[in-house]
């Protein structure tokens, strides 16, 4: 049974973005044949990671390879260690110690260094015989067992001390290797950081140059003579429909109406968006305000790259560009605003023929989604323009 004969999206799918964006290649069920044969075009993860690291390095302005940085760091390390003041063999030992694993502990020497009880009687057989013979006499004079015990204790202490010394030496070797590695890595990182710093300082200089250039450009634009503006009505005439051009209308109206048919449908849609985004006034602009900005100069369009498109696409029936330009200039230099863009003189509204009743609101105005409330992420450049431009319709 077909639950969806029309093929349209059900209501609970509204707002969904569609199917899986990964495509169908990954979604095909796996088969045994696929698993058995190796993939035709292999990827190398190490190669990909190298490329990623290279890309990061290039973006940071580092064009040296890792090996080059390590060579540079090795030279710096030698400069830090000052080979003239340090024994070169010591440096070599440190390098070897860092590279080689630590030596294991020497085996115990219990039997070799042990002190036997009859060791004090050792000697040639004749001497040993006489020593044995006079041993009772010797024991009358002093106690040799205590001497033997003391010597044995001393031997044990010596062995423990040797073990401890070996352990300490091993540990010291490990510590030396560790310190050497730490210093080496620190120097490498310092070298890397200094290279990055140089690259960043060059980038800062480049950006500062661009800022200066932009400042000069803004100053040049500010010092330029204000563009000639045609007058436009102070109050829109809501009752006037967009009438066709007539010979009785002023020249401005002729200009506006003659340019209106040249605009195609997509342009009109963009105009509406632009007008909604540009200013609140755009939504309130009545068709009767058409002649007002018909003479907006095209040369102001290169004021800012971001607004170039909007200014070039200035609609014939909206006045959104003026607040945009005003807002930019107001942000640049609010004090000089009156000199830069003087408020145009307010002519009397053009007397348009009013053939019929007031027109219905346009779909743009009627659409609740197109209410002139900017979303949170949307820039609202019209806000300062409203305060600076008293001609903004709607005020």
């Amino acid at each position, binding site marked *: 049974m077909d639950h969806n004969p029309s093929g349209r999206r059900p209501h609970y799918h509204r707002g969904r973005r*569609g199917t899986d964006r990964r495509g169908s290649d*990954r979604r095909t069920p796996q088969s045994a044949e696929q698993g058995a044969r190796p993939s035709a075009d292999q990827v190398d993860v190490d190669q990909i990671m190298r490329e990623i690291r290279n890309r990061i390095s290039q973006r940071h302005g580092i064009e040296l390879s890792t090996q080059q940085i390590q060579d540079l760091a090795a030279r710096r390390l030698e400069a830090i260690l000052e080979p003239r003041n340090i024994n070169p063999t010591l440096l070599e030992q440190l390098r070897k110690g860092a590279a080689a694993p630590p030596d294991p502990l020497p085996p115990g020497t219990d039997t070799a260094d042990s002190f036997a009880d009859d060791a004090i009687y050792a000697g040639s057989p004749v001497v040993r015989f006489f020593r044995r013979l006079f041993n009772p006499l010797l024991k009358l004079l002093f106690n040799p067992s205590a001497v033997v015990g003391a010597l044995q204790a001393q031997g044990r202490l010596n062995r423990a001390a040797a073990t401890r010394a070996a352990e300490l030496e091993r540990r010291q070797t490990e510590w030396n290797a560790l310190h050497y590695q730490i210093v080496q890595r620190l120097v490498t990182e310092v070298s890397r950081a200094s290279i990055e710093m140089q690259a960043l300082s060059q980038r800062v200089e480049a950006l500062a140059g661009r800022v200066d250039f932009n400042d000069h450009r803004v100053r040049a634009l500010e010092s330029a003579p204000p563009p000639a503006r045609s007058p436009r009505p102070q109050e829109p005439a809501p009752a006037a429909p967009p009438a066709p051009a007539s010979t009785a209308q002023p020249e401005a109206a002729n200009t506006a109406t003659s340019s209106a048919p040249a605009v195609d449908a997509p342009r009109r849609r963009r105009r509406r968006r632009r007008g909604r985004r540009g200013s609140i006034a755009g939504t309130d602009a009545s068709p009767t305000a058409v002649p007002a900005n018909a003479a907006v100069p095209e040369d102001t369009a290169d004021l800012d790259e971001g607004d170039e498109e909007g200014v070039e696409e200035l609609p014939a029936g909206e006045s959104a560009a003026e607040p945009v330009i005003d807002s930019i200039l107001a942000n640049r230099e609010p004090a000089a605003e009156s000199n830069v863009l003087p408020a145009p003189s307010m002519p009397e509204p053009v007397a348009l023929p009013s053939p019929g009743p007031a027109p219905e609101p346009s779909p743009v105005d009627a659409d609740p989604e197109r209410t002139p409330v900017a979303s949170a992420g949307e820039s609202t450049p019209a806000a300062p323009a409203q305060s600076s431009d008293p001609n903004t319709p709607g005020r």
Partner: protein
Amino acid sequence: MKFAFVTARYGADITAGPDHACRVLAEQVSSRHDVDVLTTCARNPQTWKNEYSEGTDRVRGALVRRFAVSQARDEHAFGQFSARVLAGPRSRADELEWLRRAGPWSAGLIDFIRRQHKSYDVLVFFSLCSPVTVAAATLAPERTIVFPYLQLQPALRFDVGAEILSAVRGVGLISGTERHLLRSYMRVTPQHDEVVGIGIDPSPEQSYPRHQQDPADVVVDDDAMSAGGEDDVPASYLEGRGVPFRRRHRLYGPFALYSGRVEPNNGCEEMLDYFDTFAASDGDTSLALMGVKMMKVPDEPYIRLAGVLPERQRMIACEAADVTIAPSADDLVAQPLLESLAVGTPVLASACNSAAVEHCRRSNGGLYYSNRGEFVEALRLLMTNSRLRSRLGENGRNYIRQNFRWDAVLGRFDRLVSKARAR
């Protein structure tokens, strides 16, 4: 054969570490052999408090015998003792005392092994840093296998660990990086060793419930609709897996998935921080966090919390994701990573986890990152290049199919056991 698996903790809620590896291995081995799991009543490795009830229970085919922990861990005293032992010269007694204080010390468990070890054919110990392993692994070394779960930590320098690994008959490894530590760092050449790992069985081709196969549930592409393709409803779309997860969590755009406990120890803080940088440049990608939330997660529109899901659902989530992120730095088992590779989803792993990096390099199924820049670049590459994703995914599937299916893992385990039992 009768096996005794000895581990410090045992439970379904333990999803990482040697205890997790023990559980999944014991459950699989119990289908072929008689398996007793000898463990403690502890659940939390920080306190080692007795939280499970003492006694015997059968869990998924394995007979679990729990013994009470004799001595809870005093964190302060252990810290002081640890600083003294690890920093200065130490004796064997110091090392044993350190391990005993690190816990869990269970006199009953050790006594049971001492009395009953002859009734088992093979004793399998997990974690070298467990006092139970140190105390009982040498009781019958000719029938003992140790899974040491080696990580680069100060306790790895203890001589007692090297002695045990040299004495026992076999050493099982979870990851290939352990072998490097074993031979290069500890300088131990075991009698027999084998990289066993854990197995992953990708979920079989499944048909979703009837109501989800309803044609009315088909999500139609906007472009297809606008192109007048009312008949172009992709017929194979429902065959693709991962759809329920996307639908349930309203993830209709590209998204990356993290699977595991959401806690700082698993590298989640770093991952969220890095992803925030990525999301600043690519606001279309979401990050789904699947697991218990143990830390504060920033309230960002691109973060989705998927909660705790059973294993089957986890696999479906991995299938649905474009990329799986594995930020954990010390998880040798790396089960989320393996699960993701098994279903053909490429992985972005932390380079601090040598086991994860090894999986990525051997499989050519994922990338890894060691800093923010690499994370952002690698994730951007993976999210934008579907061809690369599909290749990595295929490589990952092949890698898991060849190395980490349960039959392969159990084959390696059996080989290790047979080597250990050979006279």
